[in-house]
């Protein structure tokens, strides 16, 4: 049975394809995304307060390494598909970084199936936002003179809303612990899935709009958008396995590796690699990979994790 939040996403895509006038107000989109980021961070933070931080160092290191490696591995493939240097670099940076909503849908799917996972997994998400972007910028700068605007990029990535709210939520959750967060549980923990459903309706509308753009960019975008996630998921799952994660943890690591960022990455790439075609990256990340992961990928990655950890 398909997860209920995915049905909301499909409703959004459908509304878009039939040219419905349905549109969520921009302020609501903003509110929902802030809520989701904070809630995911808080939930991870509460778990973080229960365990020694030093034990997490290998996981953090592995997340950084995975985020850095993905763009370097994907770049030659993107170039082989005849993408221009800047376009290829910006595109692979989106895949090196992660999608928080894809992660949230995967966690919800695991919870529904009753599969346990490391509850501090939000930390992995926060850690994996930036390394892929750094790798993408390095790829774009290869063989080119000029230092570029690293300071502005660093500022916008580290203090941009996704990393700020995820890490902020983690910190608040870790400091306040289970007891401290009990009074806000009714807002930030319990209604999470309902909010996620509403947010996915909006993302369905956005992704549906990008689908029409796919034709503009030809086969390369489709090949990358559909081909990259399963391969990256395998790399993520093996990383999770090497770290000795639980079945749910391996599935989440696979999902994170397979997901492509559409909040932090587009902004960072516009600043750092402005000559790249932003619509191309967004079409692949949000128009193809995101729907693929939500509908097909996540059940696949969970099965993969179950096989690997059996």
């Amino acid at each position: 049975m398909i997860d209920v939040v995915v049905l909301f996403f499909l409703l959004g895509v459908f509304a878009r394809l039939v040219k419905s006038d349905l549109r969520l107000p921009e302020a609501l989109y903003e509110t929902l995304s802030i809520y989701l980021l904070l809630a995911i961070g808080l939930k991870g933070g509460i778990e973080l307060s229960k365990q020694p931080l030093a034990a997490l160092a290998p996981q953090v290191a592995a997340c950084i390494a995975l985020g850095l490696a993905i763009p370097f591995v994907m770049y030659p493939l993107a170039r082989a598909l005849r993408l221009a240097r800047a376009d290829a670099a910006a595109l692979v940076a989106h895949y090196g970084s992660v999608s928080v909503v894809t992660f949230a849908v995967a966690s919800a799917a695991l919870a529904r199936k009753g599969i346990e996972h490391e509850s501090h997994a939000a930390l992995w998400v926060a850690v994996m936002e930036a390394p892929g972007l750094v790798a993408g910028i390095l790829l774009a700068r290869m063989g080119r003179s000029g230092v570029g605007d690293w300071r502005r990029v660093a500022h916008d990535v580290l203090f941009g809303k996704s990393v700020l709210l995820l890490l902020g939520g983690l910190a608040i959750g870790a400091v306040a612990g289970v007891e401290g967060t009990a009074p806000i549980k009714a807002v930030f923990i319990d209604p999470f899935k309902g909010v996620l459903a509403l947010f996915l309706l909006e993302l369905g509308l956005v992704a549906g709009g990008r689908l029409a753009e796919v034709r503009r960019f030809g086969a390369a975008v489709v090949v990358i958008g559909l081909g990259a996630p399963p391969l990256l998921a395998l790399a993520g799952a093996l990383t999770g396995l090497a770290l000795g994660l639980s079945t749910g943890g391996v599935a989440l690591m696979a999902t994170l590796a397979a997901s492509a960022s559409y909040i932090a990455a587009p902004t960072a790439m516009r600043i750092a690699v402005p000559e790249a075609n932003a619509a191309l990256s967004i079409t692949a990340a949000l128009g193809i990979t995101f729907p693929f992961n939500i509908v097909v990928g996540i059940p696949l990655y969970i099965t993969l994790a179950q096989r690997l950890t059996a």
Partner: protein
Amino acid sequence: MTLSKHPKTLLVIVAEAMLEQRLVADARARGAQGWTVSAVHGGGQEGVREGAWEADRTVELKVICDAAVADAIAEHVMATYVPNYSVVLYFCAVAVLRPDRY
């Protein structure tokens, strides 16, 4: 009372929202004393920008200033942003009542 009107230039820049802070800083550095920013959406040669999510937002920046200041800002924008970003830029002749404010 007869109103005393003074000629000024209204410079309008429509650009990707992520450029807002930089455009405002650039305009102020070149002598703009005030500015107005609003969220807009629309389309052009580069495609449609609906403003539905973060990277899809567009802003309209309006600056009323002396013609020379407007030219300096426009020259900078043309050289810095136009090659790689979606930018619309135009001038209008306007009349103001308190010229020292602009």
